[in-house]
């Protein structure tokens, strides 16, 4: 291409190399690059990122070495062991089960479900926002009515009812049930942004030159609002951790034999546990708080990176 170009122009090879070098250095940096610069400029954000990535990796790997059924076996000798006794780092609960091990496996389950829920509900929400936002008219009207209806449903109650209906529910069905109800926020956000984006010239130009609608939606509009999508996905991940743990806390999430951060906090429902045996539930509660704060903080940093006027990591 470059040689071909050279044959028909007066620009020498050296000039061309210099020009393309200049063009490259002056080009807008990629989204990933901007986000990374933003993290480098903001030390607390870097700490949060390291904590989150390190913690998730630790939990995922460590839980591989824990035999869950064996861990969940009752051991009366360790009944409410204090932290530090009998070689149990965080003590034991009413069944003599190690709290530290439950915490690791529980975190893996809770984070795993939150990740799955985020992946499914965000994908669905993005589509449910892009399509009505782009087409408007009847399609928009119809899809908005579905959205309105879903907004009306009392979410927590519906999930609880569905969980009791499904005969053999496990982590996967649970994630699917949650996903039915948690796409509205994303959809609303993406739709309003797509509405604005569809009015822009490049969309009109693509339409005129005969690009198919689907291609315009997913190859042109979606990349242009990608920063919004990344921010929203991060923030909903933090929120979704609360969704599963909350339902498990009420007793309608993961079954009791499967540890989750929520079921561990549910230990606090017993007035004896909450006062005397604080180690059975407090670590899980603190962990959720730290996780949610760190993840949302990362989300805030990415949001800042997406908005050029607020960037701090500025090599511009």
């Amino acid at each position, binding site marked *: 291409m470059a040689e071909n170009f050279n044959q028909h122009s007066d620009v020498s090879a050296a000039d061309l190399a210099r020009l393309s070098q200049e063009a490259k250095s002056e080009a807008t940096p990629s989204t990933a690059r901007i986000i990374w610069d933003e993290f480098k400029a903001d030390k607390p954000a870097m700490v949060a990122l390291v904590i989150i990535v390190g913690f998730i990796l630790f939990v995922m790997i460590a839980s591989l070495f824990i035999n869950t059924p064996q861990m969940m076996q009752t051991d009366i000798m360790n009944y409410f062991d204090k932290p530090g006794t009998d070689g149990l780092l965080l003590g034991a609960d009413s069944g003599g089960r190690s709290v530290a091990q439950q915490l690791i496996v529980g975190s893996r389950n809770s984070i795993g479900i939150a990740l799955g829920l985020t992946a499914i509900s965000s994908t669905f929400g993005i589509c449910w926002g892009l399509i009505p936002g782009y087409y408007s008219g009847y399609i928009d009207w119809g899809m908005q*009515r579905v959205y*309105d*209806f879903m*907004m*009306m*449903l*009392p*979410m*927590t*109650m*519906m999930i*609880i*009812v*569905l969980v*009791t*209906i499904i*005969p053999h529910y496990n982590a996967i069905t649970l994630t699917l049930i949650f996903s039915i109800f948690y796409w509205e926020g994303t959809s609303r956000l993406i739709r309003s942004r797509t509405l604005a984006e569809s009015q822009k010239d490049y969309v009109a130009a693509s339409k005129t030159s005969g690009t198919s609608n689907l291609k315009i939606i997913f190859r042109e509009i979606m990349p242009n609002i990608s920063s919004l999508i990344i921010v929203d996905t991060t923030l909903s991940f*933090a929120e979704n*951790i*609360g969704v599963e*743990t*909350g339902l498990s*806390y*009420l*007793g*309608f999430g993961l079954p009791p034999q499967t540890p989750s951060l929520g079921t561990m*906090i549910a230990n*606090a*429902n017993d*007035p004896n546990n*909450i*006062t005397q045996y*604080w180690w059975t*539930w407090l670590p899980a*509660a603190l962990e*959720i*708080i730290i996780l*949610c*704060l760190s*993840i*949302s*903080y990362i989300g*805030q940093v990415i949001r800042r990176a997406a908005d050029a006027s607020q960037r701090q990591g500025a090599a511009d």
Partner: protein
Amino acid sequence: MWKTILRRILIMVPEVIILSILVFLLAKAMPGDPFTGSINPKADPAQLHHLMKLNGLYDPWYQQYWHWVVHLFHGNLGQSYQYQEPVTRLIAGRATNTLWLTGFSMILTYALALPMGVFAGRHEGKLPDTVIRVYTYVTYCIPFFVILVLGIWIFGYVFGWFPTTGSISTNATTWLQTIGSRFYHILLPAILGALFGTVNIVQYLRSEVIDAKRSDYVRTARAKGVPRKDIYRHHIFRNSLLPIAAFAGYSITGLLNGSIFTETVFSYPGMGLLFVNSISYRDYTVITALVLIYGILNLLGTLLSDIILTLVDPRIRIE
């Protein structure tokens, strides 16, 4: 404007109908029936069948649905199998409790959020603004039930300042004591709900105030020599008040949905706790009634907000 509101209400009708069908079918799909619990060696199977038949539990679903709807319009939501009491009376009793809690929570939320929002907007970019921003950020991220559990632990058990269960003390005899005890029981959950429910209002009010600060009418007022305090109180705050009032509808729905957690943690006998209990007893009639009530309250909440917004913002009216 009336046209917009009317259209909005007309859309609600099919939504409520679909919701009622959905709720009814889901309740029917739940495993077990209200009499499974009474099966024991002494129970006569024929008698149980008779009971099932008497309650119309063998009819096809659309017939049962139709009966249910007809009864609904007569104000009869059926009989609770668990409490042996008409559902309407049962829920009415619980609803008062939930409304007390939700209402008080709402008042506290606004009492906290309004000054904070104006204050943050007024001192944009300075220390108070940063503090309030961090506060809203923290309260927004942490799942509400974790806060409830920590709150009841610290203030209910460790310090013992607040009661940890129930809605009213058994010792309360005079009406003054009754009200006092009632108030005392909802104080902690309401404060927690308010502290952690201010985010939307604060952020909205803050950006309203920041926008208003740069608008012409404020500059004119400044030029006339109106004191800064009066500008905030009479000009900016007045203008932002109606859209903020519109948040009330959304706030109510948020608080109601949170009530399931609040009432479970504090063992507060409201509709949320009733729902959780009814689920474990498969008390269909109560479950369907509650989901329907919550759905309709959600609708009314959003309707209220939309109507206020339509009044305030003519652009919405045209759409």
